[in-house]
């Protein structure tokens, strides 16, 4: 247990450091951009950077950052001086809602579709085609088409907004469609693989009916690795919301990440990465534990 915690902490720390260093390779940042746009002279810009400690050596800034991080303080935005904790906090819930709903829809659909595509049933083909489409069309395409068709032409659902539940329908549908594809794909492969396993043949030879064979010997073992895939998707989703939030004009972490990256507002980018890392580590640790509980063979 302690080992797990330690390993998790180290992962987060290393990820934060990696991003910190990477982002500082390039010259220029959001602060300079802001000041220059307002007509500041170079001397003024240097003065401000001095006052904010941005001209200190890299190691000094790094130490300062790590100390603050250990206390949960993610720093201040270079573009507008607000606390990164506050900025992220404002936009976290809409993204969680979007990602959470997308996952909640995608998981059962993905499992069902993947199983369907793998088992020798009539709807086999349908499942396979759906999965193929879901993983091969870029998200911004499905999103744009959805907006044009369902919002502009048919007026069934709204294309933007964050305040009422109807505005969630299209973005969740689009996002879950693609997430479902990923989950279904892995499910399909695993179910197919399990079907060919030796012990299944044995079970069949023993005369067990098809239904029992399918459930106990194929599906249950096949679904185990899917838990880890779902955990992986949870991490992906935070990145996956970037495009969806931009298209559907929703407040959220994804859009914030995109804007801060383009504006070179490093503290915000770092804050989001640290957050995602923490979420990923959390979810994966949970998945690990679940795995050990569920799969008897894994019990060490």
């Amino acid at each position, binding site marked *: 247990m302690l080992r797990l915690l330690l390993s998790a902490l180290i992962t987060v720390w290393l990820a934060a450091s990696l991003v910190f260093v*990477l982002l500082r390779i390039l010259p220029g940042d959001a602060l300079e951009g802001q000041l220059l746009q307002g007509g500041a002279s170079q001397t003024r810009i240097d003065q401000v950077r001095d006052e904010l400690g941005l001209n200190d050596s890299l190691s000094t800034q790094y130490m300062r950052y790590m100390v603050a991080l250990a206390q949960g303080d993610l720093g201040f935005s270079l573009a507008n001086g607000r606390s990164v904790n506050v900025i992220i906090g404002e936009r976290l819930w809409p993204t969680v809602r979007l990602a959470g709903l997308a996952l909640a829809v995608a998981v059962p659909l993905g499992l069902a579709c993947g199983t369907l595509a793998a088992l020798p049933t009539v709807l086999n083909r349908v499942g396979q085609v759906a999965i193929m489409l879901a993983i091969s069309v870029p998200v911004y395409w499905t999103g744009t088409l959805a907006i044009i068709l369902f919002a502009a032409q048919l007026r069934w659902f709204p294309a933007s907004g964050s305040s009422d539940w109807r505005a969630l329908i299209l973005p969740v549908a689009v996002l879950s469609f693609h997430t479902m594809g990923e989950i279904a794909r892995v499910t399909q492969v695993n179910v197919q693989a399990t079907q*060919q396993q030796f012990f299944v043949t044995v079970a069949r030879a023993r005369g067990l009916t098809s239904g029992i064979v399918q459930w106990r010997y194929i599906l249950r073992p096949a679904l185990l690795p899917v838990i880890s895939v779902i955990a992986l998707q949870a991490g992906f989703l935070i990145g996956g919301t*970037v495009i969806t939030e931009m298209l559907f004009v929703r407040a959220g972490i994804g859009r914030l990440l995109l804007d801060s990256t383009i504006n070179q507002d490093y503290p915000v980018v770092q804050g989001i990465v640290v957050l995602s890392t923490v979420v*990923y580590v959390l979810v994966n640790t949970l998945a690990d534990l679940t795995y050990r509980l569920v799969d008897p063979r894994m019990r060490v």
Partner: protein
Amino acid sequence: MRFSTLILCAIILITVSARWIAPHDPMMTRTDDSLQPPSLAYPLGTDLLGRDVFSRVLYGGQRTITIAFAAVLVAILPSVPILFIQQAGTNADTLLTTLLNVLLAIPPLMLSLVLITVLGRGWWQIALATGVAQIAPYARVVRGVSLQTYRMAYVDGARAVGGSKPWIVTRHILPNCLPTLLAYAGVMFSYAIINSAALSFLGLGGAPGTPEWGAILAEGRLVVQDAPWVSIAPGVLIVLTVIAVNTWVDQFVSIERLQ
């Protein structure tokens, strides 16, 4: 399965021979013919600046496929030394696993975005950013498969015979991992195509106007209600290529489970 091989070969063949098949210069603008629907002169119509969509899609395929290939190479190559390091002992292995976990913990799109910030926008930057973001997932698959292979009986036999670790890796482990690795490489190829399309869409691609499926798709988005043909061609090709690759690699999925 054979059908998918056919499609893949067709796509690659067509894009490679763009220079001979393309009826027009993909970069030449002719604004009098802006946004023309498909016709004899322009088989897939023209875009906003009057360029032939068909020619652009042909040349675009070259760039898209090259970028995806480069990204896959970037993602795969580190796995080879990783395999060796794994056999070198538990300390090196633990260090490696920790590093890989760190990379894995950062969502791929985020990692790509951060890398692009550092490298600037451009085509090879997209390939690099996409590839690097996939190093860790791929290495994890490699690790899983190699561990399984390592446990197999014949490896014990090889060790009993006195084979050195590197020899075991090259002679026994690598060849047996190959099908799964290839399959996953295929998956990564299609992911790379979609990812570079996404990065182009977000405005992080190379010089404007250079044909690339994702970039053409992004350009087409702006005129999709008036000139849908600009987006249909690259969109369909992306989907086709991805489907073909994914179906083609299915034949390599063996009894090994993909973890």
